[in-house]
């Protein structure tokens, strides 16, 4: 999968004529514009004062850029009667996402390792059932999940929303890890077993330390998924823990006073920043994770 420099010399050569080469770059630049346009639009308008938005159209550059809308989106925009901006939502999202990512990743690693080690004729059946679970539209499971959580007193609680994210993420993380551990030489586990190490001990002391890459990859995928979740937060989080996606839609749909698209757009950007930062910082892992998950899967 890795492209060595040597490979670069012999593989696809630019034996296309010059004109085609220019066409190629034109296409790439146009595509880049397509990908950048929506977010640039949001960014530009979040920097405009409201009068400027009313006068011009959304795609003009800001004449007198200001961060007022950002400040308003952060701390004074209204959801219902409360006007505290997206700040509480962002904080809630952090509180939900961090433990949910850590738990679902580690549990996925343990389960994935167990599945990879478990030699049984039922292994394939279990794999099938878990994989199908991955594709169950979760909207179809909402109501029963509400019932289960309410029976154990976790509905609309902080622990409840973290729990739901962990459960719904588990088949996915488990499969990613299982696919990784199937490729790890069995001798490593065998050696530990010979020395009488327990399963958990082997996992914790020997397997986890060699899994740093896949751990980072899965954690990033889970982080993106959970941070960006809307529906589960809406139903399971409860008033005090509403994640920022829910607060964002409340702010955007909140019609109080004059509509203020600049504040709405600033709010949208603020909520997108954390995943974008993780993406830009971890670019290589992010890409490798997606590719590895899909190609091996």
């Amino acid at each position, binding site marked *: *999968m890795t*492209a060595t420099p040597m*490979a670069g010399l*012999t*593989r*696809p*050569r*630019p034996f*296309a004529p010059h004109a085609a080469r220019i066409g190629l770059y034109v296409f*790439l630049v146009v595509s*880049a514009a*397509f*990908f950048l346009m*929506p*977010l640039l*639009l949001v960014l530009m308008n979040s920097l405009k004062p409201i009068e400027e938005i009313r006068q011009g*159209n*959304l*795609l*003009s550059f800001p004449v007198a850029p200001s961060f007022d809308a950002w400040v308003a989106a952060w701390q004074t925009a209204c959801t219902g009667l409360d006007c505290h901006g997206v700040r509480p939502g962002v904080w809630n999202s952090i509180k939900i996402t961090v433990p949910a990512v850590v738990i679902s990743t580690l549990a996925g690693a343990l*389960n994935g390792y*167990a*599945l990879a080690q*478990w030699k049984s004729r039922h292994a*394939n059946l279990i*794999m099938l059932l878990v994989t*199908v*679970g*991955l*594709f*169950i*539209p*979760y*909207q*179809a*499971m*909402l*109501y*029963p999940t509400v*019932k*289960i959580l309410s029976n154990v007193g976790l509905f609309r609680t902080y622990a409840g929303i973290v729990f739901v994210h962990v459960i719904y993420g588990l*088949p996915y993380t488990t499969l990613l890890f299982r696919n990784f551990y199937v490729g790890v030489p069995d001798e490593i586990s065998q050696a530990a077993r010979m020395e009488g*190490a*327990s*399963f*958990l001990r082997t996992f914790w002391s020997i397997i986890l330390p060699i899994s740093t890459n896949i751990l980072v990859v899965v954690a990033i995928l889970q982080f993106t998924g959970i*941070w*960006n*979740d809307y*529906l589960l937060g809406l139903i399971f989080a409860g008033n005090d823990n509403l994640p920022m*996606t829910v607060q*964002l839609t409340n702010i955007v749909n909140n019609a109080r006073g004059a509509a203020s698209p600049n504040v*709405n757009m600033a709010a*949208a*950007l603020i909520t*997108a920043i954390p995943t974008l930062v993780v993406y*830009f910082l971890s670019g290589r892992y992010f890409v490798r994770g*997606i590719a590895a998950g*899909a*190609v091996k899967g």
Partner: protein
Amino acid sequence: MKTWFNRQAFRPDITVAAFFAVVALFFYGSIVWTFVMSLTRSTLVPTYQIVGFDQYVKLFANQRWLVSCLNMVIFGVLYIVGTLVFGMLLAVLADRRISAESLFRTVFLYPLAVSLVVTGLSWRWLLDPANGLQALMRSIGWEAFTFDWLTRPDRALYTLVIASIWHSAGLVMVIVLAGLRGIDNDLWKAIRMEGIPLWRAYLQVIFPGMRPVIASCVVLLMSEVIRGYDLIIAMTKGGPGISTEMPAKFAVDFYFARVNLGLASAASIMMLVLSLLLLAPYFYSEFRRRT
């Protein structure tokens, strides 16, 4: 604690069992319960009096459900084909030893890090005929420019396709690019020696050889289609009219806003059946390969 931790025998089956119990309870337990509910007339509170398949009959007499299903098919086909073609094209171009490859790749992939809620809002603002792209084109002198698909019942669905392709094309690009990079150099040499034109090489040799990679892309995209909810809520709320309604939204609406547990359960079961039917070929080949 430490001693217990170490004293256990090497027993992965215990962990497997615990994990499977969770999956069984939440995933399969939910399905069984939902199926039972779909056989009842439950509205707000679950009742367990079985009345047969009435709800399914009602479901398929419901115009909105039928429109939702049709929308999902149209959306699904266009989205999957569009994302694959665009993503593969980008991958091929990125593989042509271009300069600033990582910059382009970063730009193409970043939408994946953006939530579907923000994706939907951004595209809603961009395509709003009164303020967005159309207004810009007209303000710079192109008076006849019209792009009002978002507000047209016969076109709004396609704006969802555009926004979703925007969100996922980079994903396909990265996966396919990784596949391309894994291709044996000898194959390229052979292609060059035979003098096969590049486009034919990709279409007839390279891509057919990457079938498993492309299949897993399709499966990934398909699961997005069936779950499609957040994007619709942020972008069109199912409108104009019911022109962008989808099954997932139907189920959620009928569970909660319409307070019709029985019908919503029937819709959920149908969604599940549908996704299993669509994925059956994949599962079949996958597990035949494994065993």
